[in-house]
């Protein structure tokens, strides 16, 4: 704010509010900030089954393998990943190195 100087306490508080709400508005128009995902689980619908433009997963925004395996093995994320605890214990048996052979993981039909 280069043309106006808030002088009294009230004006300074008002300006702090304006500045804060502007910062929030700016944040929404920029790239989302790097989020710390909890290991093994996530609260957002992260890419788990997509490929990048070259058909691999290296270009995706985060290692999908982390989701794939951690949800499968440790925390049961039923919507996206077959659960390895009760229903599909050998789902990934065909896949030794997911960065390369993820395509060999088959669908699971409940």
């Amino acid at each position, binding site marked *: 704010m280069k043309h106006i*100087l808030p002088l*009294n306490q009230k*004006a300074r508080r008002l300006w702090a509010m*304006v500045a804060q709400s502007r910062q929030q508005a700016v944040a929404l128009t920029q790239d989302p900030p790097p989020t710390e995902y909890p290991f093994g689980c996530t609260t957002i619908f992260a890419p788990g089954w997509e490929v990048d433009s070259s058909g691999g997963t290296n270009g995706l925004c985060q290692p999908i393998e982390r989701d794939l395996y951690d949800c499968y093995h440790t925390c049961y994320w039923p919507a996206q990943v077959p659960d390895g605890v009760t229903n599909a214990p050998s789902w990934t048996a065909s896949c030794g190195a997911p960065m390369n052979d993820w395509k060999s993981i088959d669908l699971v039909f409940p």
Partner: protein
Amino acid sequence: MRLRTVLHRRFHDEHGTAFVYVTPSAAILALDGLAGQLVAGFDVPDGVDDADFVAQHADPAEARRALGDLVDLGVIRPVDEVRPPAAQLPPMPFPLATLVLNVTNKCNLSCTYCYEYGADKIATPAAPGEKRVSRMTEDTARQSIDFLLRSSAERPQVSITFFGGETLLNFPAIRAAVDYAEQQAKAVRKRVHYSLTTNATLLTDEVIDFLTTHRFGITISIDGDAGEQDRHRVWKSGAGSFADMEPRIRKLIATNKERKGRPIGARVTVTRGAKSVIDTYRFLTGDLGFDEVGFAPVTAGPDRTWALGDQGYENLLAEFSTLAEDYVAAAAAGRAHGFANLGDLLRELHQGIHKAHPCGAGLGLLGVSTEGELGLCHRFVESKDHALGSVRKGLDEGKRTAFLEQAHVDHKTDCRVCFAKPLCAGGCYHEAHVRYGDATRANLHYCEWIRGFVDLGLKTYARILRANPKFFARYESS
């Protein structure tokens, strides 16, 4: 979109810097050339189209940016913006903070201008055969303390102010109230602050010792030096009272300084023909040693010989602005100054106070009559029309709320378009009652004076900020 500058007051300091006091928020802003142009340029009743204004500006990008800031700060707003609904009352019952006990309505002086006895009194005359209690009993004083403590909700501190008549004519009630308050407040873990107003004629060594021991905030009604004091503040015989009070005041001030008590204030009633407030201020602080001096124009119908005429108000304002020079000089050097009217105004300006009601009467403050009846404030307690219950039976919340609703500044048509509204809110209820017979009316006979005084406060505020930017930190609360 059509935009318009909201209700405000623009002013300049002696260096030509522009400022604006924004009424809806009570914010004070300094403006550079461009921002000043915008605030003035959009100050048009029907508003101005923002795109046109910006396009015609020499530097459209900067104008757009500054305009955006002013819009976000609420200085320039869309013409058709829906106004927030008229401000409401705070949640009722509002917890009490202060009780003013009229411990007596007798006085040992006969000041010619006094509203308590003179033609401007509002006390309801006693009915034939009705006996009025002119001294508060110790029981009533104690019941008042109970009432205050139970009506103050979560407040950690409450205040008791003793008033009269001449307050010290009933010293036993004061002592009883204080002793009882100390004991009761401890039980509910509250602190109590005491204050009193007196004409000083009854300040004995015993009284001085008591008041300073309990750290009373003391205000002395005194009009100035012997010449001033003795014009109106006289004994029943007509003789002046100065000679009797002077040594007592000196003793009180000396004892209070020794004991590091609270500041002692003088309250000067300004009447027609009074000496300049500058001389009076210098005498009271310099010679007698008062810490603060507050000046109040006399409350009186316009035809009283002591009432200030228009000329009197104008002179008073001119004298106030001379005294403000002293204030600025003291503030620049980091020293407090005792001109209480200006000090209070500067604090309110700095904090950005925004009042819906002119004072705490009926809200955080109530008066108690000698008989224990509750009123809006000490000036209303003898008026049956304004009775709000009693300390024994409790407060008439319905009547209280109805009064506060009606007295809200949003109901005072003239005040709605007044830039000084956040500070004045229509002015004293008692003054309005004396003038118009209706306590909820705005004191329109005062407006010129109020606005002039607020202008003086704004200019002084800007000057002090330049001379000593840290001066106002003393008024900051978080």
